[in-house]
């Protein structure tokens, strides 16, 4: 799994994840999200994630909870078909707003 973080204006952290998010790697994602979720909106680009287990979903939920405490948002961008499948299966598709591009997501979270 690879993670990159880009800080944008208006307190937005764009976090791009690729590869496999499972019980071995989810703690790295969780840490990256924790580092940025207290004071930022999180825009999470999941286009390059080819596998996500429930351990990865827990990291996403944790970020959603943390950003909400500061009246901020955690949103998803272009989840891969396999990520979408686990979101649908878990019911979390109703929890996370999903956008086609990072730029659209960034514009919407601060609007």
């Amino acid at each position, binding site marked *: 799994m690879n993670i990159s973080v880009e800080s944008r204006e208006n307190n937005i952290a764009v976090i791009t994840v690729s590869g*496999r998010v*499972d*019980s*071995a790697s989810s703690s790295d994602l969780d840490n990256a999200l924790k580092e940025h979720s207290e004071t930022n909106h999180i825009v999470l680009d999941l286009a390059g994630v080819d*596998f996500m*287990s*429930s*351990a990865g*979903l*827990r990291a996403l*939920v944790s970020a*959603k*909870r943390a950003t*909400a*405490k500061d009246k901020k948002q955690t949103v998803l961008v272009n989840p891969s078909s*396999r990520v979408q*499948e*686990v979101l649908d*299966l*878990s*019911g*979390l598709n*109703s*929890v996370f707003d999903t956008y086609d591009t990072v730029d659209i997501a960034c514009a919407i979270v601060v609007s």
Partner: protein
Amino acid sequence: MGNQSQLTVPGRYDQIRQICQFVVAGAKQAGLDDDAIFQVELACDEACTNVIEHAYGGENRGELDIVWSYDDRAFTITIYDQGKTFDPQSVPQPNLPIVDDPTNLKVGGLGIYFMRKLMDEISYRFDESKGNTLVMRKLLSE
């Protein structure tokens, strides 16, 4: 390679990818399609994670033996461990997320929920000498 194969690995999270690769290879050989292979891989990942987390109570406390096999009817994954008894079927259905208050959002039990949803049959037994045995089956298409 015949229609059965076995893999033994230490009970660590960093071994789960290897287990999944092993199972995926068997599922391909059995003729499952890409969607079914993904579902088998996810169920296997969740099952092995549960063994390490719940049966062993942490990493490096025992081994996982994984056997895949298939016949005309189904692709079968059998997972053996020597941890404490842990029947995934005893875990209640998770409370799926409530969106009204994101600050209180919680999810739990999703792994077992996935196993139940993605596999066609799941059975479990515990034996004092052999430990836990979890069997998960994916039926082959007609």
